[in-house]
């Protein structure tokens, strides 16, 4: 126990705030302030839209933690988001559990799947593209299972009637069915997630992940059990994705097989890539922006949006190789 405390102190000791971090922190505080004031002006529709985007931002942060720090790409990350969503839906509609139980079920199943598969693959030295493609395969399998195993998952139609989260604490009542309340809930959780991940990764723990990501062999010879570290990071990312998925299920009210599928997995990769891998605030804001932008683009022209979106991706790759955050950085440095 004492040893665990020592380890925590070693791993999560916080260094002073660096110059570049200060810029990021300012952006984060400004973004939070703007978003917190948004309900005063936004319509119900835009509020609900932004709330969903904030939940998806948690999902994006879970990938950013993994991909940005350990360079480990999960091409089927929606697998865990979907498991979280299905866990919530099955627990609340089939088993009659409260939403808290659904949250735990989704997270527990996702973390167990990640731990089992991760142990199996990571300890065998499966990395990089191999790992990425295999996770894509897992998401394909899961989509198929969700569509076929209809007695549990509702099949292709999915599960309907997932209730919103409701709870009372300290004499206050929170109701996820209320637009403004659920918006603030999502806002709080998204920024809390970002804060926690940022604090963890700016501490020495983040250095370890960075070292493993950039040169695993070297890290191993420095005494790090790299496979175990990667497994922990993978499992944590899966749990966080499931958390986001479970929350999403409560606001959407339905879950369907494509929540586990490759399209959502690709989208989350794109959000993180556009925001700038490993920057946390970048992917969070990118999720909000890209989600809104792709909604707008696809409403602008129902027939041409794939062209516009495809062009946007190419533009980002060539014009903003390090994501949106690099734009700010470049300006700062210039």
């Amino acid at each position, binding site marked *: 126990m004492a*040893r665990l405390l*020592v*380890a925590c102190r*070693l*791993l999560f000791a916080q260094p002073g705030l660096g110059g570049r971090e200060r810029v990021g922190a300012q952006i984060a505080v400004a973004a939070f302030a703007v978003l917190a004031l948004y309900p005063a002006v936004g319509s119900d529709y835009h509020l609900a839209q932004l709330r969903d985007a904030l939940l998806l931002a948690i999902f994006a942060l879970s990938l950013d933690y993994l991909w940005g720090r350990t360079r480990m790409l999960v091409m089927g990350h929606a697998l865990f988001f979907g498991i979280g969503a299905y866990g919530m839906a099955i627990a609340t509609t089939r088993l009659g559990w409260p939403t808290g139980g659904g949250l735990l079920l989704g997270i527990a199943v996702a973390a167990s799947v990640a731990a089992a598969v991760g142990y199996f693959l990571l300890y065998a030295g499966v990395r990089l593209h191999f790992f990425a493609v295999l996770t894509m395969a897992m998401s394909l399998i899961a989509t198929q299972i969700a569509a076929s195993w209809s007695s549990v998952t509702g099949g292709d139609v999915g599960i309907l009637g997932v209730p919103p989260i409701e709870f009372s604490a300290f004499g206050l009542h929170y109701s996820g069915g209320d637009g403004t309340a659920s918006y603030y809930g999502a806002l709080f959780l998204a920024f809390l997630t970002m804060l926690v991940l940022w604090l963890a990764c700016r501490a*020495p723990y983040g*250095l*370890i992940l*960075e*070292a493993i990501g*950039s*040169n695993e*062999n*070297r*890290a*191993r*010879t*420095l*005494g*790090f*059990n*790299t496979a175990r570290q990667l497994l922990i990071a993978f499992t944590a990312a899966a749990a966080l994705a499931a958390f986001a998925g479970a929350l999403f299920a409560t606001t959407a009210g339905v879950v369907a097989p494509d929540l586990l599928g490759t399209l959502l997995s690709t989208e989350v990769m794109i959000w993180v890539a556009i925001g700038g891998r490993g920057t946390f605030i970048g992917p969070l804001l990118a999720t909000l922006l890209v989600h809104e932008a792709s909604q707008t683009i696809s409403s602008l022209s129902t027939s041409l949006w794939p062209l516009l979106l495809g062009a946007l991706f190419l533009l980002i790759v060539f014009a903003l190789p390090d994501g949106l955050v690099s734009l700010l950085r470049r300006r700062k440095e210039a």
Partner: protein
Amino acid sequence: MGTLLEIEQVGKRYGGIMAIDGVSFTIGERELVCVIGPNGAGKSSLLNVMSGTVRPDQGDVRFRGRSLRSQPAHAFANHGIVRKFQGANVFPWMTVTDSLRMAGLGVALHSGRAPPAVEDVLATIKLGHQAHRLGSMCSHGQRQWLEVGMTLMCRPRILLLDEPTAGMTAVATVEMAELALRLAAEMSVVVIEHDMSFVRRLGCRTLVMHQGRLIADGPFDAVSHDERVRDAYLGRA
């Protein structure tokens, strides 16, 4: 002087080539050892086996009598066998300070003992003025020092240095030799080198490898006069 590491009949094959062929020797506590040999003699392969980076096909590596044969690379480091790579293998996107801080954590978490102070190691490797420079921005020589610094953060019992002076100025080479001699007072140090003047300066026990075999083992002066060693270097063997 007790025995710390035993290399016993180690062999490693790559395709049709025996990179290491039945090599045996021991390394004592606080012993300084140089490994020399012409290109392709199997020096780096030997170091890979000694540090657990590569698993041998035959033979055994024993640390204080315990076999490490089936142990993963990180376990070697946690036992105190820490290596520096050839050609300055640093982390490009980490500052010097961050690299050192990170390097100390692995072993520290395993042993429960705090790592050495980053400032002390910075002073030892003379990079105090470069503390906030990124690994990728360091000169080749600075990276060599940084690599050594990272190994020191692991509190090594046996330090394995693969070509520590490659790309260094003459002055820095002298400094590296001094550091190696100083470190040998606290730990065992094994150095693989090409630079004969450096090896001569260390003036320690020297192992000579040739075509995967160990052909000589003794004080540098004796080894350097050995007929077989001369033949090997001149390509007559």
